[in-house]
């Protein structure tokens, strides 16, 4: 799309977009291209020589049970984070939307966790869920009678990083649901009330379907968040352990590339990750455009 009344100039538009193009070429296209090439190569440990090996690296990672485990871990983790944070965000937003008098205050009280870095959120939850010092861990031990130890038990560790990652996303989801709720015409709700629909019925029959665009959008955003930005949580809290049970894909790329110095494999993993994100994004655009057309 372009303005009908566009300016004409032979050099100005090029100068204006030049900085963006240079930065994108240097720090996006060139590295992406290099990564693609490296994913088809095997290099010796000293990085001196590399041989072209076609799809060897790709075949290797898909044969590697550790990689496949990491794929499963990533999906479990991102689905857990998305469902916890979206449902809590939606619940609080619905309540806040009913409490019309206090909306501004509620928003202020709920919005700030968005500004907390994932790694710091990790530290806070590490303290709450620490097997020897955490108060929530104590509660789980005492009241639920479960032996809680995220240092040794993979499932416990997964719960811990899910809590730390979902916590700060609640406010993000809250902001979007709040905006979505306020965009729903009052007349619809009132008409349903006159027809005798109860508040719960109204929520499921009117509000929830009208929120579906927000819902789909947030699902994608939360999944992408848990794919990448949660790196900080994992690096501070579990370092992928115990026994690789919280080793999500982006953490594995980092470990294999920078700690294990396996260039080819790390690049192939990056390319797979990139493809995955492109697929999710394209699906989102297609799905959202077709299915969801209500905009308040």
């Amino acid at each position, binding site marked *: 799309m*372009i*303005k009908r009344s566009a300016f004409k100039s032979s050099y100005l538009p090029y100068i204006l977009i030049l900085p963006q193009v240079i930065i994108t070429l240097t*720090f996006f296209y060139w590295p992406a291209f*290099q990564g693609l090439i490296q994913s088809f190569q095997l290099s010796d440990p000293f990085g001196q020589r590399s041989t072209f090996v076609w799809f060897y690296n790709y075949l290797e990672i898909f044969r590697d049970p550790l990689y496949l485990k990491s794929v499963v871990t990533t999906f479990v983790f991102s689905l857990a984070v998305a469902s916890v944070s979206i449902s809590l965000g939606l619940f609080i937003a619905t309540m806040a939307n009913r409490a019309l008098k206090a909306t501004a205050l509620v928003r202020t009280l709920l919005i700030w966790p968005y*500004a907390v870095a994932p790694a710091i959120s990790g530290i806070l939850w590490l303290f709450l869920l620490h097997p020897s010092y955490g108060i929530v861990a104590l509660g789980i031990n005492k009241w639920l009678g479960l032996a809680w130890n995220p240092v040794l038990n993979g499932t416990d560790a997964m719960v811990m990083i899910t809590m730390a990652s979902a916590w700060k996303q609640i406010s993000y989801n809250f902001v979007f649901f709040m905006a979505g709720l306020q965009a729903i015409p009052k007349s619809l709700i009132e008409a349903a009330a006159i027809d005798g629909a109860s508040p719960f019925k109204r929520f499921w029959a009117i509000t929830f379907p009208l929120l579906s665009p927000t819902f789909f959008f947030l699902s994608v955003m939360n999944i992408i968040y848990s794919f990448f930005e949660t790196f900080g949580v994992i690096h501070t809290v579990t370092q992928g352990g115990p026994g690789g049970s919280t080793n999500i894909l982006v953490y594995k790329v980092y470990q294999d590339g920078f700690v294990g110095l396996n260039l080819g494999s790390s690049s192939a993993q990056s390319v797979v990750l990139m493809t995955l994100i492109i697929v999710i994004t394209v699906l989102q655009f297609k799905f959202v455009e077709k299915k969801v057309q209500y905009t308040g």
Partner: protein
Amino acid sequence: MVEKTPILDTFTYVFLMVGILIVGFPIIYSLIAATLPLEDVSKVPIPLIPGDQFLANMTEAWTRGNLGTQILNSFIMATGITVGKITISIFGAFSIVYFDYRLRVVAFASVFCTLMLPVEVRIMPTYEVAANVLSPVQALWDTLHLNGLVSWFTGHEFEMSLNWSLLDSYTGLIMPLVASATCTFLFRQFFLTVPEELCEAAKMDGASPMTFFRKILFPLSKTNIAALIVIEFVYGYNQYLWPLLVTTDPHMTTAVIGLQDLIPQADDLPEWNVALSGALLVMLPPVLVVLSMQRWFVKGLIEKEK
């Protein structure tokens, strides 16, 4: 609401309060822990009455974690990313929306391909570029065999090798994170909603493109810029993976990463009071920015994703 439902309303407020408490609990609890002396913070559960060691713990975290330097580094990085991204994006979007030129579609497509792909998916090769930012130029030079050409031309042996490392520098921390199209996309969407008549009138009055930009488009974009300042500042300040790779010098470490050193490990004294004091100090700048610019922030967040 529509009808009177006193019971449901009571529940609404109760649930809302519980919700706010759950969201706020990690912070309240950490704030209490940050005021306690070591012997109290190692009790399980900790006493819920704040102690008097708040300042002592904060000072300890500040000096032990070298937080002064690190928060300054984070601040410079966040500001650099914010200013860099907004500046190149607003001009880029201006070029794409208001000019008609041959390579417009190519420029547009190449910039927007980067929209959903964060730096995390290409860390390894981006690190190599940061280690020698001139390597793309060098590669081009070598592919074209320009060394031989220059040697032949000048009659001397010629060997060009370019090397400019961005590791452990602010430029290295900032630049790769500026390479993203999110802001350009927002400005583009906004410029498309600006009425055509404004531009037509400006042209009729003989304004040059840059005058139109300075006098009309930029003032109209101020709210959007304010919103992006909040979002990009928080984004930049909270970066983790990239600063972790690109800085090895402790004087260049950013605050969010430096905090790692304060967390008590298995064999250390369980000084959670100091670790949590540090965490609270480090999270303060972005939290203050979000709270003080809340209105623009919410607007920007929602506009950004449309």
